């Protein structure tokens, strides 16, 4: 057998966070090896073609990452990054929201309040700074007391929109904040739901701003908005992948890691599982091992109780997976889906009917009032079982159509019509009271339930018109991608107990671990959590610079709100 290979850094997992980390470190001139369990890199950032000509985004589909420093720092434009700009804006055009009695308009106060919270009324680059402060800044070091003065987004508001800065801001829920700044109930309900589906829910205290900004990453005119990258988020991932490889990173697929090798309290490499597509089974890391895989697997299995104290183990076990599994449906139908009578007035405006705009973009339904939202949240996070909310009141959302682009399957598929994804939040399989495989057993029933829910608004999901219903349950998700623990889309909730200096637990909050040379960089483990933001790797870079592992060139800039750890090298230049 060959000799063990050696690299400066070994990254476990080639999801967006692992690959972005590899790109950053390779650009620093380090030798990097990325090990991925699946045949394809990308983690939950992928595209599939289940039947020829039909593209499905099983997981990530929306572009939240626009303000990321990674675009500039990794020069993704040179690596082929392109957006597919939709001619439609979310909040400038389609300003009606779908409720059980039909469309309800939103008001200027809604729009202005929302714009103000998002920094559109201040001086640029207010919005970008606000977003970067919230997501793209490492948590403060443990010796620094977190206060209203030093929380990054608080600093940005204070500078650009002082009337929003209050001592209550960090106590509030997003709904509290919307009550103050916006007007209509259906707008607030829709935004609270969107926030829940983007990580930090609308009714959680202490995360009002992360909740608001995560939705704004999708709705403000200068962010991704309703547009997605060419090739979907997988296309965006490809640009990162290309950046990593062209800076020299070595990427190995079908190479699941079994164990992190720890010698004398230090991570020195990894051992691969025996099914790995490689002769050598041990890969050594001179400087660092980075676990870009889920926090449970990384610490409970790969590091294990031999190296961690029981208190930490318990805390890691307790990382809350409550934050919904997304039950994703895509439909193949004989005739296009149409809005039913109650909503038909918007057929034209929403681009439905024949021609290129033949699938509707529906946003969120039903947004009548926050009671519906509460009912849905309680069903998913409280009841821990099969849904009890009647299908008529299930809240769901619908991905943006790509029909404006003739190269997309939704616009050009010849054998029927392909919908964009419909998603409903359901209980995480791991928390399901009837066992983790309950979703497998109920799949047919759940499919029917989902179709009934969507049929509140669209016609065409009847047996006569339906050719195929692709559905991926949280249980499928868990098997498809080991990183998605609990089958949940972000792995663990983005609430106050698990965000910023508490993510995933205080002991691990700055991407360091009790094992020297071992760092973590996965959505389940690092601030700011889920979404394909290139944020965890950017934040982690600060720490790797502090520890003398990464020495970036002039292209690097640290977060303006970053506070160096005492006694370490500052990641700020100049």
């Amino acid at each position, binding site marked *: 057998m*060959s000799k063990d*290979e050696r690299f400066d850094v070994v990254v476990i997992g080639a999801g967006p966070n692992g690959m972005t980390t590899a790109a950053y470190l390779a650009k620093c001139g380090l030798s990097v090896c990325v090990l991925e369990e*699946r*045949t*394809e*890199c990308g983690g939950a950032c992928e*595209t*599939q*073609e*289940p*039947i*020829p*000509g039909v*593209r*499905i985004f*099983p997981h990530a589909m929306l572009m939240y990452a*626009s*303000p*990321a420093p990674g*675009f500039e720092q990794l020069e*993704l*434009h*040179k*690596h*082929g*990054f*392109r*957006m*597919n700009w939709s001619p439609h804006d979310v909040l400038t055009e389609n300003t009606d929201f779908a409720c059980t009695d039909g469309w309800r308009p939103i008001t200027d106060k809604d729009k202005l309040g929302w714009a103000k919270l998002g920094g559109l009324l201040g001086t*640029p680059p207010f919005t970008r700074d606000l977003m970067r402060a919230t997501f793209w800044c490492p948590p403060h070091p443990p010796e620094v007391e977190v206060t209203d003065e030093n929380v990054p987004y608080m600093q940005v508001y204070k500078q650009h929109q002082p009337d929003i800065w209050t001592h209550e801001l960090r106590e509030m829920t997003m709904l509290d904040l919307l009550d103050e700044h916006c007007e209509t109930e259906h707008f607030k309900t829709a935004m609270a739901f969107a926030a829940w589906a983007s990580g930090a829910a609308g009714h959680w205290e202490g995360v009002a701003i992360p909740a608001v900004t995560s939705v704004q990453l999708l709705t403000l005119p*200068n*962010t991704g908005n309703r547009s997605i990258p*060419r*090739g*979907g988020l*997988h*296309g965006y991932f*490809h640009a990162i992948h*290309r950046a990593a*490889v*062209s800076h*020299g990173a070595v*990427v*190995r697929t*079908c190479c699941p890691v079994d164990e992190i090798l720890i010698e004398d309290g230090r991570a020195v490499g990894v051992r691969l599982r025996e*099914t790995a*597509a*490689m*002769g*050598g089974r041990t890969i050594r890391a001179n400087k660092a091992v980075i676990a870009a895989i889920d926090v449970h697997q990384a610490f409970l299995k790969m590091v294990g109780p031999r190296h961690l104290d029981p208190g930490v183990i318990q805390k890691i076990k307790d990382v809350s997976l409550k934050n919904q599994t997304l039950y994703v449906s895509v439909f193949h139908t004989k005739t296009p889906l149409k809005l039913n009578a109650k909503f038909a007035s918007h057929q034209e405006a929403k681009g439905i009917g024949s021609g290129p705009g033949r699938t509707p973009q529906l946003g969120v339904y039903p947004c009548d009032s926050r009671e519906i939202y509460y009912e849905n949240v309680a069903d998913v996070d409280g009841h821990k079982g099969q849904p009890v909310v009647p299908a008529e009141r299930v809240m769901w959302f619908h991905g943006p159509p790509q029909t404006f682009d*003739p*190269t997309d399957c939704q616009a050009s*598929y010849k*054998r029927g019509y392909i919908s964009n994804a419909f998603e409903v939040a359901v209980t995480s399989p791991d928390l399901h009271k009837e066992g983790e495989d309950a979703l497998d057993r109920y799949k047919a029933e759940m499919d029917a339930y989902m179709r009934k829910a969507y049929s509140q608004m669209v016609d065409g999901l009847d047996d006569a018109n339906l050719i195929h219903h*692709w559905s*991926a349950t949280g249980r*499928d*998700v868990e*098997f*498809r991608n080991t990183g998605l623990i609990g089958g949940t889309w972000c792995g663990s909730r983005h609430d106050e107990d698990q965000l910023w200096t508490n993510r995933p637990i205080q002991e691990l909050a700055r991407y360091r671990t009790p094992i020297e040379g071992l760092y973590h960089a996965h959505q389940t483990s690092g601030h700011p959590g889920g979404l394909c933001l290139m944020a965890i790797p950017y934040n982690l870079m600060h720490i790797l610079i502090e520890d003398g592992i990464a020495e970036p060139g002039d292209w690097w800039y640290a977060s303006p709100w970053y506070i160096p750890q005492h006694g370490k090298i500052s990641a700020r230049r100049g």
Partner: protein
Amino acid sequence: MPNFKYTSEFQFDPSDPFGHMQEEFPRRSEFDVVIIGAGPNGLIAGAYLARAGLKVAVVERRFEAGGGLATEENLYPCYSSNPHVLYHMMVDYMPAIRDFELDGPALTWIRPNSQTGMVFEDGSSILLARMANDTKDSIAKYSFKDAVTFGKVVRKWRKIVDDIIAPATYIPPMAPIEITMAMQRTPVGQEMLELGELSPLQLITETFDHDKVRALLLYASCMWGLDPRETGLGFMVPLMIDRAMNKCYCYGGSHKFASALGRQVLKGGGLILEAATVDKILIENGRAVGVHLFHEDRELRAKVVMSTLDPHTTFLDMVGEQHLDAALKESVKGWAWDKWSFNTLHIAANEKPKYRCDDPWIDQAFATVVGIEGVDSLLQHWGNVAKGKLDLNAFGGHSTCESQFDPTLSDRPGKYVSMFQIHAPYDLEGGWLARRDEIQEAILARWRKAAPNLTPENIVSRSMEDPEEIEIRFPHMRRGSIKHGDYRPLQMGYYRPNEHCSSTRTPIEGLYVCGVSTYPGGLVLGGPGYLGANSVAEDLGVKKWWKPTPEMDRYIKTYLS
């Protein structure tokens, strides 16, 4: 680091608060080489040229590079398979695999001994193995004479492959008269020329006596599209049979091969641009100067454009008839598509197929032919297909359980992904859309007859790709042409795609062709891309960092010097 030049401003404006926050790939850019299509050939050409220091962009229409080298979750959710390339025929010869060291940690090739089995309705079977004596043992069940013949003949055939056909795959084509002269130099060459006179059917029936032996070898010879009755390509039979004994599986799926090649493009500083559809090859003053992308108003300009697509797409759609001289136009318009296509059923099941037959090695075979009872039934099936028909009571095909080599294809533990592929007409009588379900059931029934454990309860997911869908996935595989065009004497060797272009250079300056419609042709041989890279390196005057393989050297010394 990709090293290309910006030739104009991009649309990103950092000072515009409501403008886009992220910068994008520019609307106008400049390269040395732009390659259309990131299939195996485009990637190979790109990898060689990028490492040679040229600025290379490989432009790909799909969301994923790889072309036929695809591994996808077509049994969504949770089960993947290889919808197109599954059998890798030239791993032991392909220069790209050696030059880029793609048989170490980067890629793992599996070459099972039990290669191609054939099972018959009465429970008997026959097996083509990598090790000749295992094949002989299997043939001996029917005819000791055939077994002895096989032992002798494959050694001779192997020599033809090893000395001539395999190395010649990676050397520019020669006109027939030159080949005849060169081959006269050795007895092996002379023998090859003699074989060329025969049709596959003649060669096999003249060599072997037993019907089942003939059926297996004829299937192996013609499954990739040789006409069993056509003379002039008999020399392909030794190649096809030798290759049928040496197929490899790419662990992790065929796409892993594409990814490994793609990373070589990137490592050399090249760029791969997916979700980018070329609609025009830009021609200025009779010269190809770049490509234009559909729906995104982007132009990539280049000194050299290489197309890996079929001749119609390249010359009629992208270049435009007005730029073609009469001779080229005529030969492009006369291009013949593949005589048949493939229809493939993929399944995920609780078990791997267990064939009801007299040889346990059949269950481990890389490919198992089912439904063919002898030469007559095989010819009848192919005859039907050529006429646009499928007789659902009499047809056959080959199947493979991919999961037995590759646990990574199934995300759910303990499940097996398998496929059953039949030769099938593009213009099916009755139409594919109307007859799909019926055909799917018939295939399953036939398969189940041979492998009774494939019960409905055992099958957890299935998905079928018909010839029209091959064209939907890859519009340049017109009429489901898996090789972008038929194998027939006038479209082979020096004439693939025609005598003007088979060297990979075309009458249009700056334009090269190097997909499987160019010499040496179809399947993942890695020939066209390699030859294209050689031509471009020579014409642009860059130093080749690579050398011919030892087999090629030997061939050049013996036959060309």
